């Protein structure tokens, strides 16, 4: 009897106290209004809080990032109707908003068409406009309560599957009158952005309870969350199975659901409350983690070396490391001489010993990258790229000799030619003369200062030193981030070489964004001014592909071309290191691209530790 009492009281204590989990944010969300958040005020800190509020028709699965139905009941059917391409999407009929209304085709059609209207007529921008691209999206139509048809001008993985069909869906019942009212005002978008939506119905598992400005945001689990108890199973053979025993929903895709399971997840929510505490500096948040005040820190830059070292020693804390979907790179201005000479770019690439820099100088805090598709994006990454990069796997002396040979091959000369013996520079090169006879005085390498990113700053200084040794007069100019942006995009293209970084999506259409010659205009993303008709042709095909495997093949080819032409030298990226209190919470998995914060800390799956 007494044992039972103790057991019951422990249970009571657990259910009352252990159900609140605390997470740390390093900045306050700017807004929790969907129009504003997916519009002008997009910050990652807002998405950590509201990222799971709204449903989408399709979503990426956990861990493997398979493209799976979320509010949709099955994958879309694609057919051509006259000039247009129609994607027919069946919807789930077991989904309910937090105000009790059922989710229907009306919500989907209203959201898509309204956003389109706001983009076209009122200039709604930001992520709304990139998700629902008016050049591709035409309109959405309701077929019946649980079927919608979405029309596009042409099929496109990026704009349809990974674009419109993954846009958040808002509640028509709640928003329709508000939007109509807003349209009557002088500044409709501002009215919408400013609208206090704290009573907005949502689909996701957690609902906002309290936002104490400057201090914390509190969310409470919805007991009536439609997907509670549903199971997601990823099979090793690629198959995906979703089933919800409560509503009877069942879906299988990408093959037969047999064989070994890679992952099995049962959706919660398992905790009562989540409190996002706001700390204004990293040290504060990490000290709070060590003290047990919070059990996970959202930190988009990841933990620094010193922080990870210390957390690894703290009891109860677990440090995890994941690859990221991005890269840091240097970009040549191919509109200028001699950066337009392929061998010149290759020579610099040959000099840069990424392995040495990453493993030794940066102390293992970074890993080398070679391709414009990051290694972590395993499906799209071409593993042949590193070998295509000049100097790969060579000793330092060989790298120097290769760089000199490449320059000589292109017709470069020196006033004093560099001399290499073994690994050492016996005589530094001086007075580089370009093939056209012009003396190259100085080449400016714009890189962020140590305050913004010590790694890039360090790397720039090493590149400067290595280049100078063989007589390439590169001068690393460590400057403010905004200054680089201004020189590159505003002035425009007033630079020789700059060094920055990109953070990317899963579908690598950024290759076309960065290197297609039609994107080389003022303020656009082809800052290198790369112009290769062969590349353009392949890139167009890549963008138009509606079949994933065909797209993959084309993507590999694009990467190979870029590895040889080198408008960018992709340098490295940092793994994202995170830490959580394993004695307070349990995550369903730890290995996922870009870390647990990329999936908002999986609030519907996280459990409290016993």
């Amino acid at each position, binding site marked *: 009897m007494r044992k039972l009492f103790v057991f019951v009281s422990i249970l009571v204590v657990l259910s009352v106290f252990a159900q609140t989990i605390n997470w740390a944010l390093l900045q306050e969300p700017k807004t929790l209004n969907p129009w504003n958040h997916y519009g002008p005020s997009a910050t990652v800190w807002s998405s950590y809080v509201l990222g799971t509020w709204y449903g989408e028709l399709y979503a990426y699965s956990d861990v493997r990032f398979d493209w799976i139905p979320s509010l949709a009941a099955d994958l879309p059917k694609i057919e051509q109707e006259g000039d247009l391409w129609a994607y027919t999407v069946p919807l789930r009929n077991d989904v309910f908003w937090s105000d009790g209304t059922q989710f229907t085709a009306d919500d989907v059609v209203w959201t898509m068409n309204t956003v389109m209207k706001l983009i076209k007529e009122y200039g709604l921008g930001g992520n709304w406009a990139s998700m629902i691209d008016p050049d591709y999206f035409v309109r959405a139509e309701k077929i019946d309560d649980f079927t919608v048809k979405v029309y596009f001008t042409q099929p496109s993985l990026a704009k349809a599957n990974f674009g419109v069909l993954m846009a958040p869906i808002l509640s028509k019942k709640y928003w329709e009158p508000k939007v109509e009212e807003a349209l009557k005002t002088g500044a409709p978008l501002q009215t919408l952005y400013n609208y206090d939506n704290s009573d907005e119905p949502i689909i996701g598992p957690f609902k906002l309870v309290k936002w104490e400005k400057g201090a914390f945001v509190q969310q409470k689990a919805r007991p009536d969350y439609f997907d509670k108890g549903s199971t997601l199973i990823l099979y090793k053979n690629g198959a995906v199975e979703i089933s919800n025993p409560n509503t009877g929903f069942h879906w299988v895709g990408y093959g037969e659901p047999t064989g070994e399971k890679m992952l099995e997840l049962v959706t919660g929510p398992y905790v009562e409350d989540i409190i996002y505490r706001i700390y204004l500096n990293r040290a504060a948040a990490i000290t709070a983690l060590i003290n047990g005040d919070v059990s996970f820190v959202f930190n988009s830059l990841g933990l620094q070396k*010193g922080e990870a070292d210390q957390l690894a020693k703290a009891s109860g804390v677990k440090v995890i490391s994941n690859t990221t979907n991005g890269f840091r790179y240097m970009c040549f201005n191919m509109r200028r001489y001699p950066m337009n000479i392929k061998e010149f770019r290759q020579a610099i690439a040959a000099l840069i010993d990424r392995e*040495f820099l990453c493993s030794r100088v940066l102390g293992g805090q970074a890993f080398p990258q070679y391709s414009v598709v990051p290694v972590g994006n395993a499906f799209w990454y071409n593993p042949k790229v590193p070998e295509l990069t000049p100097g790969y796997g060579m000793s330092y002396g060989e790298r120097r000799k290769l760089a000199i040979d490449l320059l000589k091959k292109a017709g470069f000369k020196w006033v004093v030619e560099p001399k290499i013996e073994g*690994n050492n*520079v016996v005589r530094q090169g001086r007075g580089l003369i370009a093939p056209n006879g012009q003396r190259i005085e100085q080449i400016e390498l714009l890189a962020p200062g140590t*305050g913004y990113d*010590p790694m890039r700053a360090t790397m720039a200084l090493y590149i400067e*030193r290595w280049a100078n040794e063989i007589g390439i007069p590169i001068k690393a100019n460590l400057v403010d981030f905004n200054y680089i942006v201004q020189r590159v995009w505003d002035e425009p293209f007033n630079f020789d070489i700059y060094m920055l970084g990109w953070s990317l999506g899963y579908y690598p259409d950024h290759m076309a964004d960065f290197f297609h010659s039609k994107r080389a205009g003022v303020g656009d993303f082809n800052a290198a001014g790369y112009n290769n008709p062969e590349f353009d042709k392949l890139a167009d095909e890549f963008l138009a592909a509606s079949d994933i495997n065909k797209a993959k093949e084309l993507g590999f080819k694009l990467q190979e071309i870029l590895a040889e032409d080198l408008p960018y030298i992709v340098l490295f990226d940092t793994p994202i290191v995170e830490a959580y209190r394993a004695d307070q919470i349990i995550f369903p998995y730890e290995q996922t691209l870009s870390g647990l914060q990329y999936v908002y800390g999986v609030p519907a799956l996280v459990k409290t530790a016993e």
Partner: protein
Amino acid sequence: MTEMVVAEPLWKIRLKLWIRSLRTGWELFKEKKLALFGLGVIIFFAIFGLLYPLYPVVMKNLFWKHDSFGYQTFMPYDPIVGFDPDIMSHPSPPSLRHPLGTDPLGRDILAMIMYSTPREFVLGITAALITVIIGTIIGASAAYYGGVIDTFFMRLADIVMLFPSLALLMVLSAFMELTLFRLALIMGILAGFGSITLVLKAQALTVKVRPFIDAAKSTGASDAYIIFKHIIPNILPLSFLYMMFNVTGAIFTEAVLSFLGLANIRMSWGVIIQMAESSGYLMGASIGMYWWLWLPAGVCITLLCSSFYFLGRGLEEIVNPRLRKR
């Protein structure tokens, strides 16, 4: 020829007078132990910084002979990129090879501190000198001319004083790359048009009413002559005093800007601390475990800044008779 004979004694007399006042000043100064301490520390840092070029040479012959990677890290040693590949994990604690250890990027902390020392001096003294020159000239002319010139510069000072100086420098850091010299220049100019003009003008006003100014005027001396020969020499002691305090301010501001990552200075004491902070060693238990990353640089800032301050206060008691002991 005769002029020479007349000129030399005058010059000698002046020198003698100057030496005498210096000597009495020194007698007074000697009693101020804190000021003496400050002067000592400043001299120490000056020598410490000037010795920097010897440091890599000495270290190379004693402890840095081994360079197995052939990356020529130590030849010639550059404290900004001077990575030591022979040590497996950085930051490494103090050792013979690196007397104050290495930072997370594998650089020798002592080398960084020594290398920064002359730069801190240059920064502080340049900024302070500019401030004092501007402040003295404006203060003297505003007091002498009065009227429009006075009003203009006093209102200008009001506006400059309205700006929170750190906040303003943060904005300016977006305009240009705040290299060491530019930073010194900007800090000097900003402070020069600010509150110092008020103080020096007040002092110059007391000089202006003295009889020798009128005497000089009656002999037909030009305005510029009076300002430079009579007024400025009499407010110079006060200017010099403010220079000491401004050195402190300049060094401190640079450290804060570097700490916030807003200055483009490749190496300074502030940068060393910023490196420790940004790589995550400046929190929790690491504060004690990795003391060499922040303590030496922090101590240097405090020591040098407080020394100039002590020196300034010592001089103040000599220059400002109100504060003299009876």
